């Protein structure tokens, strides 16, 4: 589904990603962990071209992102993204947030989009919030709406950038629950997270990033119980 080869990314002089190689298969759940500033968000954002790629190859669902002929909007319709700060549209109701892209990009009729939106709201447990504005929702509810909004495009792949980091601790569970359900349904997911419990339980593979490279990768069992790299051990000692 995704193939990343020797990905480099610099902001001006500052090289943030220093050669990332990685493959993500269909229906796989990949969790990315690592210290702050190691380049996790940048890596994720390169996968849907929110950041331009400095050098290397990234292929997503058969599209070569380096190729100028690739229609980036087409790629993005297949790649959902959920942000740390939710980024719901504050001037639109919950259902309008969800309906916008299916109508404008997928050309669904209003009724079709609404039907799809309501189904997704039911799925994330927010059927009663359809006509509310985002500002009247709790952080956990907003993030669940954001997930529903991304799913409304019926993407093949979902990217999550620390989806629970901005939430009060008591609201984290409801969002992780929705993500778990998605994983169980076979969604391909790349999740940057500090929730080690979630990574351990849901991930098929965990990737430890440090200073712009992938230091270590493997099954959650191996990474959390038997890490080979000292840096991984050090990091896990700090966060666990």
């Amino acid at each position, binding site marked *: 589904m995704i193939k990343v080869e020797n990905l480099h990314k610099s902001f001006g002089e500052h090289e943030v990603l220093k050669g990332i190689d990685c493959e993500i298969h269909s229906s796989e759940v990949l969790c990315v962990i690592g210290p702050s500033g190691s380049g996790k968000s940048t890596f994720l954002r390169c996968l*849907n071209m*929110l950041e331009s790629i400095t050098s290397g190859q990234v292929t997503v669902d058969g599209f070569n992102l380096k190729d100028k002929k690739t229609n980036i*909007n*087409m790629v*993005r*319709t297949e*790649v*959902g*993204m959920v*942000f740390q*700060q939710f*980024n*719901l*549209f*504050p*001037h639109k109701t919950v259902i309008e947030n969800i309906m*916008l*892209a299916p109508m*404008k*990009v997928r050309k669904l009729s209003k009724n079709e989009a609404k039907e799809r939106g309501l189904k997704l709201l039911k799925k994330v447990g927010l059927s009663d919030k359809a006509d509310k*504005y985002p500002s009247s929702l709790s952080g956990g509810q907003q993030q669940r709406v*954001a997930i529903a*909004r*991304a799913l409304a*495009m019926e993407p093949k792949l979902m990217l999550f950038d620390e989806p629970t980091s901005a939430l009060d601790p008591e609201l984290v569970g409801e969002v992780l629950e929705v993500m778990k359900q998605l994983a169980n349904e076979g969604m391909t997911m790349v999740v940057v997270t500090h929730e080690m419990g979630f990574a351990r339980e849901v991930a098929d593979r965990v990737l430890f990033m440090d200073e712009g490279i992938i230091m270590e990768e493997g099954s959650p069992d191996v990474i959390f119980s038997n890490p080979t790299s000292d840096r991984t051990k050090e990091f896990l000692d700090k966060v666990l």
Partner: protein
Amino acid sequence: MEGRFNWAGVIDFLPELGTGLYYTLLISIIGLIIGFILGAIFGLGRISKNKIFYGISSIYIEVIRGTPVLVQAIWIFFALPLITGYNMASVTAGIVVIAVNSGAYIAEIVRGAVQSIAKGQVEAGRSLGLTHNQTMRYIVWPQAFKRMIPPLGNQFIISIKDTSLLSVILVPELMFQGRLIASNYFNAVEIYTTVAVFYLIITLTLSFILRMIEKRLDVQ
């Protein structure tokens, strides 16, 4: 003081003042509509990645903001025809002055409002597959427009007051009529007070309308 001023006599001049009011409103409304269009275009120019568009927008905004509106009016009415060889009617010139002047200030308002919309909003739109234009149209503009309303209202009021300077280029607006009457009938106190009250009524009405709009938009 009783009897020194003939306030009742002002009524005789209402037709002339009415004509002045008509031109003041006409020039304000048409000038500001064009000014808003100019402001939207050059405001987007100021955030454009296109260097030429950005450059032209910047020069326009800096030149207008850096010179007095009175100089602009006189330049457009008296100097520009000597360059172009084309004489403009004073009312047309007045509309051009208000449009070009307010456009520069409105451009800065537009730029500020668009830039105040969080980057995350654009990223959320683009990550859903919306194009740049769709993201601007459905996500950035509606939010930015709401934020523009208070400073736009401010600018509208300033521009309406600026129309009084157009009397120097012979636009038959309110101030021009006032000066004409006062110099013929020596009733400066009564006429200029009435003129001031007319301006006040226009600006207070506009303030009131704007406050209603703001309130309505905040309900969401």
